[in-house]
């Protein structure tokens, strides 16, 4: 039997909460708002620093701006090797004996290649185009395209299309919402995403937890996911979606499964996922019917059969070392869309060791996959969607120039809904009502407000993308797509530039 340890943790708090008692008028809003039990009231507001996660809920709602949060003023003896993070984690594991769990994407200071890529603009020899005066087209189609079209003439000698095109999804902006399951996030998050996707002409993605029956009216703009747990997968679900996605892996946790603890599985989630109330929802690491590429092909075609070949099928994988060859196999296996999730991609819960150390950056994965599919002459056969920390419209523009058909945003969408990237999603206590199922918290997100904030974000990005296209002197997104000639790298080594297919800044055409 393990020895009982002292109940007092040796781990110092991360943050320090300071309440200015001269300004505080003791309204207790901070106490009511704090879902982590940090703000308590004992004659006056008395924070328990060790519980603060820096989610900003209290500071946002304090009417007096009386609260400030800083790093905990604790000095560690300086050591570049035994960093504070490592010492804290070692203490945690010594106390718990467990895997370190965390939420959100990889926070470590790996190079972010987006920030080493620069976009071109027109001067003199070709004119830039003013997006306020001229059309600036972002319309994008996801799905398999043939290499060529065939035509025929009808009885009146008019030219008609002979080629039967595979099913496609039309996007008005090449930015779609990431797969986030009902269970990991609240119903109100799903609803906000669904409304916004419909209004903006883009897609949301159910994630692996099925689709709540209330959201079926929005399903024309919803990609439904089939993951290894097969939660909530049934014939109507597949048929309702605009597209079906087979989830093989996720950037934040390549090669491992998922776990939704039983306490989050209330009645609604239980109905949606088709599992009993209160049971843990365990997604196995691999699909138990996919042990090789030909198994994947069978599942792709099983889904196509089930949906009468009316829906594009996407396969989502994490960006791992051999991603280019794997993606090529997936295209040959019959996928219409390949979604690649880079190692900075977000999640509701993952072991920190996996999130922080496994996989490769999406920039490199995307460049390698696009080039491989072109070298093999099969780039048209599938759309390429990239995920795994697309933070702003500039990242979208650069990803499209590297070769992506569309980009996925998860964290950025959640931030628009209020998320402060506190990384405590796995606790189920999200103060913003996002990564939680506690009714008193989920209430905090109003889907009408949430969807409007998402629409605003996408509208802003849309205008920014149009500005970039205009300055590049092109008026349609397909003229940027894959046009790596319009990118230059700065501060990158030769091999990285080669993989990206980009010249260094300072080199002309």
């Amino acid at each position, binding site marked *: 039997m393990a020895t009982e340890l002292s109940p007092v943790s040796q781990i110092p708090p991360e943050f320090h909460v300071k309440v200015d008692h001269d300004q505080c008028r003791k309204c207790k809003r901070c106490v009511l708002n704090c879902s982590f039990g940090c703000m308590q009231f004992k004659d006056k507001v008395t924070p328990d620093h060790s519980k603060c996660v820096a989610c900003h809920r209290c500071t946002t709602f304090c009417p007096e701006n009386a609260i400030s949060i800083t790093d905990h003023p604790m000095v560690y003896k300086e050591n570049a090797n035994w960093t504070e993070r490592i010492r804290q984690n070692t203490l945690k594991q010594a106390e718990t004996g467990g895997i370190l769990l965390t939420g959100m994407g990889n926070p470590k200071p790996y190079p972010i290649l987006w920030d080493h890529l620069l976009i071109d603009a*027109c001067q003199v*020899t*070709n*004119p830039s*185009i003013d997006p306020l005066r*001229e*059309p600036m*087209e972002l*319309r994008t*189609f996801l799905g398999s*395209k*043939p*290499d*060529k*079209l*065939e*035509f025929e003439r009808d009885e009146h000698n*008019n*030219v*008609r*299309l002979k*080629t039967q*095109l595979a099913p*496609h999804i039309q996007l008005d902006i090449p930015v779609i919402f990431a797969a986030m399951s009902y269970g990991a996030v609240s119903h109100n998050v799903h609803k906000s995403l669904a409304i916004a996707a419909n209004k903006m002409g883009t897609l949301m993605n159910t994630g692996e937890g099925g689709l709540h029956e209330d959201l079926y009216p929005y399903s024309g703009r919803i990609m439904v996911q089939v993951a290894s747990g097969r939660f909530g997968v049934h014939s109507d679900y597949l048929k309702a979606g605009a597209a079906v996605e087979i989830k093989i892996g996720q950037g934040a946790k390549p090669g491992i499964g998922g776990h939704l603890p039983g306490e989050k599985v209330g009645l609604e989630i239980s109905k949606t996922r088709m599992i009993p109330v209160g049971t843990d929802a365990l997604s196995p690491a691999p699909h138990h019917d996919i042990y090789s590429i030909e198994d994947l092909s069978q599942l792709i075609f099983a889904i196509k059969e089930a949906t009468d070949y009316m829906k594009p099928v996407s396969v989502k994988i994490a960006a791992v070392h051999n991603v280019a060859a794997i993606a090529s196999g997936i295209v040959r296996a019959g996928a219409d869309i390949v979604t690649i999730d880079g190692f900075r991609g977000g999640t509701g819960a993952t072991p920190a060791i996996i999130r922080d150390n496994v996989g490769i950056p999406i920039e490199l994965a995307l460049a390698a996959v696009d080039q491989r599919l*072109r070298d093999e*002459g099969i*780039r*048209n056969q599938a759309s390429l969607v990239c995920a795994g920390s697309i933070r702003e419209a500039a990242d979208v523009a650069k990803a499209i120039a590297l070769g992506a058909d569309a980009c996925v945003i998860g964290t950025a969408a959640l931030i628009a809904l209020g998320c402060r990237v506190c990384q405590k999603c796995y606790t189920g206590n999200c103060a913003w009502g996002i990564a939680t199922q506690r009714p008193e918290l989920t209430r905090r997100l109003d889907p009408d407000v949430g969807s409007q904030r998402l629409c605003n974000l996408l509208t802003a990005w849309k205008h920014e993308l149009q500005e970039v296209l205009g300055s*590049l*002197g*092109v*008026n*349609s997104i*397909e*003229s*940027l*797509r*894959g*046009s*790596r*000639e*319009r990118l230059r790298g700065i501060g990158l080594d030769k091999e990285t530039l080669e993989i990206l297919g980009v010249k260094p800044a300072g080199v*002309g*055409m």
Partner: protein
Amino acid sequence: MRCNTRIPSGCAISGMMCESGDRVDGSAIIKSIALMHDRSNGLGGGFAAYGIYPRRADQYAFHMMFDDFAAKENFDEYVKDHFIVERDEVIPTSPFGNITSPPVLWRYFLNVDEKKLEFVEDREYVVNKVMEINSNVPGAFVSSSGKNMGAFKGVGYPEDIGHFYKLEEYKGYIWTSHGRFPTNTPGWWGGAHPFGLLDWSIVHNGEISSYGINKRYLEMFGYKLELRTDTEVVAYLFDLLVRRQNLPMELAVKALSAPFWDNIDRMEPHTKELMTAIRMVYGGALLNGPYSIILGHSRGMMGLNDRIKLRPMTCGRKDDMLYMASEESAIREIEPDLDTVWSPKAGEAVVGTLNGEVE
């Protein structure tokens, strides 16, 4: 010698065609392009002419440029192995004041041995060989490779180049021409326009802002882009869409200079379906940026502007003659009394079709 960087340039273009197939000599086209002297800067000029080799109309006429005679010897070895050489001769030139240091200019009239065509159609064979020569035979460059046509180009003002090649002595039913204003000195004759492949020739005024993706798109279909010029891209796109994929010309044009979605959405259902499919499938072929192009081929001539008409082009007709040029004055210079004259709309192709027999 060879220039491997991409050089943006401004330009003048002019083209004329006799749709009934009558042939005229090259003095008119020289006069037309000379009028737009100020649109070039003496760093590139050239012409394409159709119908100039009627007695060898069935043979591939290769207009070659060699860095020196050693390069020609290399090529002579190569060409013997891959073609039947019916005749080869120097391309006649008259040393003209402003033209300096031309390469060795030679033309070959070629047939392809039936035995080589067991697995590949003859035009495909020729395209592959042209790419092979341009990338693998040192110092040799194919400036045109069609039947009964040829490209005549070099570094200099176009009118000087025209006289240098003695174009007054050739007769053709289509003539196109180009004067170039590159932003730095290429100094390489092969880089001048027109660009030719099989019987395609392109003269082009503009800058393709979508060059990067057009190039990668073509590479996926096996094209090797050696010259890194916009013209090369345009020629290969036509070759891919029209020759290899059999798109009707009027639809190929819609892939390159696509209508806007707003307009497509208002079209009647069949046309909408057609245009939507073209834009979905041929997005990589969309030419974006400012351009006006004149495409020549053995059955006709076509003018095309970019999607929002960022470069000028005017067209005119007189009887069987169709004219197109960067400036109306360049047409009036050679035909003051036009039946019609108009500026084609953005993205709208002007098509001249050979409807008679070539005399």
